[in-house]
């Protein structure tokens, strides 16, 4: 029960985040609810995987692959290219905080001089961001890399 409440809370707030970003990307109004559902599904599925002991990179990959596969169905149903709603859906999973932390560490190394802690922060945050991002994008691209290699989805 407690798990269900955590997941619902997670899904609700990541849906808001996904819709907020789809307004920046000017997604047409009739497709906004797809971004909301996609965002909620992706992030709560990842949270579920994380809670069950998966590490963050495979969890992000599986969640993004889920959105990518559902995206194939939606894109045929509504006749729009997949990135229109898949990218907004996975935005809540993008490792923005890691990216900025890595860049700030880089800046601090210049400012304060080299120290093993700062270097470790730069490398760890930078690599985490890199691997999560690769996992997400590859998960999204999975249907068009594996199944739809030569023909368009819509």
């Amino acid at each position, binding site marked *: 029960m407690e798990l269900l409440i955590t997941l619902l809370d997670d899904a609700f707030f990541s849906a808001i985040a996904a819709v907020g970003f*789809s307004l920046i990307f000017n*997604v047409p109004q009739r497709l906004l609810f797809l971004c909301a559902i996609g965002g909620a599904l992706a992030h709560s599925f990842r949270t579920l995987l994380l809670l069950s002991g998966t590490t963050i990179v495979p969890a992000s990959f599986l969640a993004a692959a889920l959105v990518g596969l559902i995206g194939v169905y939606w894109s045929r149903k509504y006749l729009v*290219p997949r*990135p229109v709603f898949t990218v907004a859906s996975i935005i*809540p999973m993008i490792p*923005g905080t890691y990216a900025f932390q890595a860049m700030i560490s880089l800046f601090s190394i210049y400012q304060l001089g080299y120290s093993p802690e700062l270097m470790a922060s730069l490398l760890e945050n930078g690599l985490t961001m890199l691997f999560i*991002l690769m996992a997400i*994008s*590859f998960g999204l691209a999975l249907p068009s890399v594996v199944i739809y290699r030569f023909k368009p989805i819509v």
Partner: protein
Amino acid sequence: MDKLLSSADNQTAHSPAPIVLSKTDQTDILRVLVLLAMRLMQHGAESKLVEQTTTRMGIALGLDSVEVALTGNAVIITSLYKGRCKTTTRRVYDRGINMHVVCEIQRLILKAEQQPLSHQNVSQLLEAIEPQKYNRWLVILMVGMACASFSHLLGGDWQVFLMTMLSSSVAMAFRQEMAKRHHSVLLTFSLTAFLATLIASLAVRYHIGNEPHLVMAASVLLLVPGFPLINAVSDFVKGHIGIGMSRWFMATLLSFCVAMGIALALMVTGIEGWL
């Protein structure tokens, strides 16, 4: 003879009459295609989509084949028809991500494949597509809510939620003002990050909420270049290394600008450590 050949070559099974294209027709179709590819690139479509859509449109309009080359800021298109090649290049300027335009162009190409359209028709329909934008106050409100939701997902309480909403909404309004005046994106991003962190630092200073540092972390998340990063990796995966690199580098540069803005604000306010 000519007619027979073209009907055999024509790959769109639906179009009834065999199409014969004159030299001027070929040039006009090429102009339509380059405009189509340019608009997709300007509004943030990934390379495979641009390539596929342009090729399909060319074949639907009666060309034998279309070759598309994309670079970081230009499109090069060659049309082939009965051994005649014509090539054209256009410079691409970034007009901001707009999925509305991408959707409309997708509908146009489906229409052109289902029923034969003349290139004049397609050209008119293409030029009629206006990049639609949401009301700016709605965007400010929703982006504020989005960043506040991030702060909640990171583990903040309702005070952190409200502070994040305040600082990211002000930051989004500032970003829109900068964009309206056509300032450099790099400058816009670093100044917006500076402003957002400055407002968020109030939470740290007056100890608002359970984790005041989360306000600073969450209120700059509206500046994460998510779309360029995802597009970059999709391009890598699908073999467009060159253009993927230029998207990746632009996104890295934008993140660096944001980090500079944050670092500057930390220096001004004297707060140690970002997270």
